[in-house]
């Protein structure tokens, strides 16, 4: 075979390089997908052991309110009722979202509609800084400022859902705000012009046109914030009091899924019921974060259809 023909039939250096590059990038992306699958597999395999190996009833796990896995009750059944933690987690999540949403939406409206200049110069960096502050620092401030303040005003120990709500409010505020800003900026300019041309005031334009058009985006931001609040561990653990009891009120010590996990998993023996029960809580946490994801997708789809 003459050399020219051989060279034509052989794959070029470029083609080889291309294939190698494509393989490398495919390998990287598969690694990420495998990690996600592995997280689900491992957490589920440990978390389901409570129900299959220790024969704990799923319903009693979710609905009973006594959590002391180390001690069996009078009938010899393990006492793993996760209700206190579930109530605690949902409590701080919803309350902090309820407090944070008006602030976040207000700030976002200010940044996009009222004073874009000041918004960009002052509020934008402020929001970015709030995102950057590590969660343990929020926890420390909660512990040394918020908890004593609550103790002073309401009595009790100061630890509890209220303190957790305060800390989480500041933590999710920037998340919700920046996503709301994006949603408001995505509303076309002519919507506003049309409303103003009809004689609407600025507030009428904002409340009846802009906010309504941006609603799916704002809701997505709020759910994102809730997901963050639900999964936040250390800051909440430092201020909530860590008592696995059903909270009587907002200022009695409580616990969340994450707080029990962080304080408990190191003190239990792998494979024991106490340990398995904690992994079940982790599985619950994982499933909830999945649920938040689904809600965000659902809102996204709903919002699309309206347009």
């Amino acid at each position, binding site marked *: 075979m003459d050399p020219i023909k051989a060279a034509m039939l052989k794959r070029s250096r470029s083609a080889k390089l291309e294939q190698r590059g494509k393989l490398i990038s495919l390998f990287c992306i598969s690694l990420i997908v495998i990690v996600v699958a592995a997280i689900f597999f491992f957490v589920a395999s440990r978390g389901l052991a409570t129900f299959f190996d220790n024969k704990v009833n799923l319903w009693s796990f979710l609905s009973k309110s006594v959590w002391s896995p180390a001690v069996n009750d009078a009938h010899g059944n393990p006492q793993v009722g996760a209700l206190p933690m579930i109530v605690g987690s949902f409590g701080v999540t919803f309350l902090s979202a309820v407090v944070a949403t008006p602030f976040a939406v207000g*700030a976002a409206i200010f940044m996009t509609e009222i004073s874009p200049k000041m918004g960009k110069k002052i509020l934008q960096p402020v929001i970015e800084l709030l995102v950057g502050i590590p969660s343990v620092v929020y926890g420390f401030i909660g512990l040394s400022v918020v908890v004593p303040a609550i103790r002073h005003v309401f009595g009790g120990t100061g630890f509890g859902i209220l303190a957790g709500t305060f800390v989480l409010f500041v933590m999710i505020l920037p998340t919700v705000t920046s996503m709301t800003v994006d949603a408001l900026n995505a509303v076309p300019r002519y919507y506003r012009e049309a409303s103003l041309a009809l004689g609407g005031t600025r507030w009428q334009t904002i409340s009846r046109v802009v906010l309504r058009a941006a609603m799916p985006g704002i809701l997505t931001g709020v759910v994102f914030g809730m997901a963050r609040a639900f999964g936040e561990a250390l800051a909440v653990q430092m201020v909530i009091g860590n008592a696995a009891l059903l909270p009587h009120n907002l200022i009695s010590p409580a616990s969340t899924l994450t707080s029990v996990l962080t304080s408990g998993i190191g003190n239990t023996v792998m494979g024991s019921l106490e340990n398995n029960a904690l992994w079940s809580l982790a599985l619950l946490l994982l499933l909830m974060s999945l649920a938040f994801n689904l809600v965000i997708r659902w809102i996204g789809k709903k919002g699309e259809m309206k347009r």
Partner: protein
Amino acid sequence: MNAKQKDRLATGVLYTIAVLIVLILASLLGYILVQGLPHVSWHFLTSPAKAFEAGGGIGIQLFNSFYLLLLAMLISVPISLGAGIYLAEYAKANRLTDIIRTAIEILSSLPSVVVGLFGFLVFVLQFHFGFSILSGALALTMFNLPLLTRNIEDSLRQVDFAQREAGLALGLSRWETVIHVVIPEALPGIITGMILGAGRVFGEAAALIYTAGQSAPALDFTDWNPLNIASPLNIFRPAETLAVHIWKINSEGIQPDAAAVSAGASAVLILAVLLFNVLARFLGQRLYKKMTAE
């Protein structure tokens, strides 16, 4: 109340909210810096922590934080670069890509404590790495990957398609075009994203308490052989970071000056994160100017 009065009232309320948020941040920063900075001294930054008596420093924790950050970035940057290139350049709009994107989305929304627990189960127990810097760095990698990947993909996508066409027209393969044409132009955005990611990793604690551990054994800073157990470079030693240290002394409460130490450590942590933020902006702008010859 007529529409005009309502408008004025609403504007007032919005101004109040904006001012309140600025005040919240100002008081947070002010509190930490006023409480913490007086404790920060050269001695505080370099001496080891003490468990039962006052006067301990954060030297080892500070070193651990930076070392762990460096390792985590060394592992996660190449992987997310490859993944970002795949998503921006090679991924077709099909089911597989959908699944990949969903996986990344899920990973980015996972609570960091779950990532930490997974790291504990797999790296610490299954792989027998123990509570070590390596386990911690791998856990941080998982925490860092989705955000870094998304950042790199976005930066690559912002490069004009004409650049790619130019590369291909010159006879370069797609991979060569990406490496030699697209990535250099996207570099400012990638670097900014990396530094911001570094700031986030630096303050992370929940993913580390059960992977890198909660103890900081004494280090011999004259021993740079990574195989020795007292060497700062050893990746199989437990390494409590600054953020974990703040959490631990506050939840254990056996240190008499826990409040002072955590205030000082918080101030250092916040200043480091601020520094990362400023650096990200500065370097991003600098690089952009340099590469676009503006």
